[in-house]
């Protein structure tokens, strides 16, 4: 599994402040829920152009999103089977309807668009800047420790590949002792989960020590972000576009 991550670049999106990108992402994602066809087309075209400009290879992007695309296919077919209308094909007792497929395609398109915009955010923004943006945007909210939340987010992203590596190692060690001959998955699960959890918690302990050894404290370790004119212009354009959709 190759996670989608930050890529160095000089594109327009790379130059924007992470806080503004995050606000724009939230606004556009919410707008996608009920956007008309023309707005979806505009957003899709813009997202594709920005992805290319940001240096994301379409081939590798599709490869990295393959499981999500399978999920979209499942959503599309499920919608086609569960929506009443003109039946195109009959599968057992269920009919695949024209209206269902059309609705499923629109839902899939909306979800894909939200994911594409999220990918744009991730590949054009340093993870440290995303953390700083989350901490700064959550700071005014009472009862939410924005800095701690941002640190947790960063650590999760950093350690997902490490935990997956551990899982792979544990799984290989189990297979070397013929665990695959046990057909019952309920038997196999504890033998994978228990050593993996133990190793992950030990890892987490060492991580805490390592962070403390480098003077970690919740308020520190975050970049200071500064807004430029282009950030306000971009936000103004996005807010205008969302307002237009709301009025229409």
């Amino acid at each position, binding site marked *: 599994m190759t996670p989608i991550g930050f890529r160095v670049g000089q594109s327009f999106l790379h130059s924007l402040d992470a806080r503004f990108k995050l606000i724009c992402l939230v606004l556009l994602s919410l707008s996608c829920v009920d956007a008309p066809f023309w707005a979806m087309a505009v957003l899709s075209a813009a997202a594709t152009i920005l992805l290319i400009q940001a240096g994301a290879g379409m081939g590798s992007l599709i490869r990295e999103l393959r499981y999500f695309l399978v999920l979209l296919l499942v959503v599309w077919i499920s919608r086609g089977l569960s929506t009443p209308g003109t039946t195109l094909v009959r599968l057992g007792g269920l009919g695949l309807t024209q209206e269902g497929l059309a609705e499923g395609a629109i839902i899939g398109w909306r979800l894909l668009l939200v994911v594409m915009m999220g990918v744009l955010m991730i590949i054009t923004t340093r993870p440290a800047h995303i953390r700083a943006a989350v901490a700064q945007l959550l700071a005014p909210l009472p009862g939410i420790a924005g800095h701690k939340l941002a640190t947790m987010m960063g650590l999760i992203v950093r350690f997902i590949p490490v935990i997956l590596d551990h899982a792979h190692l544990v799984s290989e060690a189990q297979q070397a002792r013929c665990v695959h001959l046990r057909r019952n998955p309920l038997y196999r699960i504890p033998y994978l989960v228990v050593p993996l959890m133990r190793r992950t918690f030990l890892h987490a302990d060492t991580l805490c020590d390592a962070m403390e050894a480098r003077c*970690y404290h919740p308020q520190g370790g975050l970049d200071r972000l500064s807004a430029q004119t282009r950030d306000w212009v971009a936000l103004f354009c996005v807010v205008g576009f969302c307002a237009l959709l709301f009025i229409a």
Partner: protein
Amino acid sequence: MRIIEIENLRHRFADGTLGLDGVNMTIETGTLLVLAGANGSGKTTLLKHLNGLLFPETGRVLVAGKPVAEDVMRARQLVGMVFQDADSQIVSETVWDDVAFGPRNLGLERADVIGRVTAALESVGLAGMADQRPHQLSGGEKRRLAIAGVLAMQPQVLLMDEPFSNLDHPGVCQVLQQLLAVHQTGKTIIVCTHDVEKIIGYAHRLVILSSGRIVLDGEPEAILPQMEPFGVRAPCALRLGLPVTPWLN
């Protein structure tokens, strides 16, 4: 000048086990000290006391004349620690961000952070990998990144816990060269290991721990022939009756 002073240090773990028992030691600035002992002898526990990650039951540790317990942040800035498992020490999603983690915690200005990170990455030969994901680095590169992360905090003392474990030969050479280069800049280095072969040719002092106590302490030539009863294997050259030479040669 004494950079580290340990006075009657005693540490007991939560389960009641005695980790360190009456350790006394002083370390002069610029020393390259090897701390050796069998597994469970208390090496890592002792290192954690120098960095303020653990605090003693009795006794005290002074860094540059001031007790660690009085100002932990100062101690952590002056004494940098590189952990045995580099993967556990690397906390950020890019090489650059990981090296910047410490300087940012110190609340430095952005320009200072950039300066320190650039210098640290150049010093360990990772300048061209600043935007890579740490997960994709080799074992030796990860260890060098961990060293860079500590160097960026500009410590006076560098603690290294089993720096050569799980590394192939080129990885060991890279880390050893790096360690010696840092020592050349005048920093005090304490290397904790149960395998002294690779580093002993460069060390000024060898300390052997056993069951939480210092059992041997002195110049390597004097200590090497006596250390095997304490679970530390003597270098091959010594076993063959030859002089111990620097490992990189």
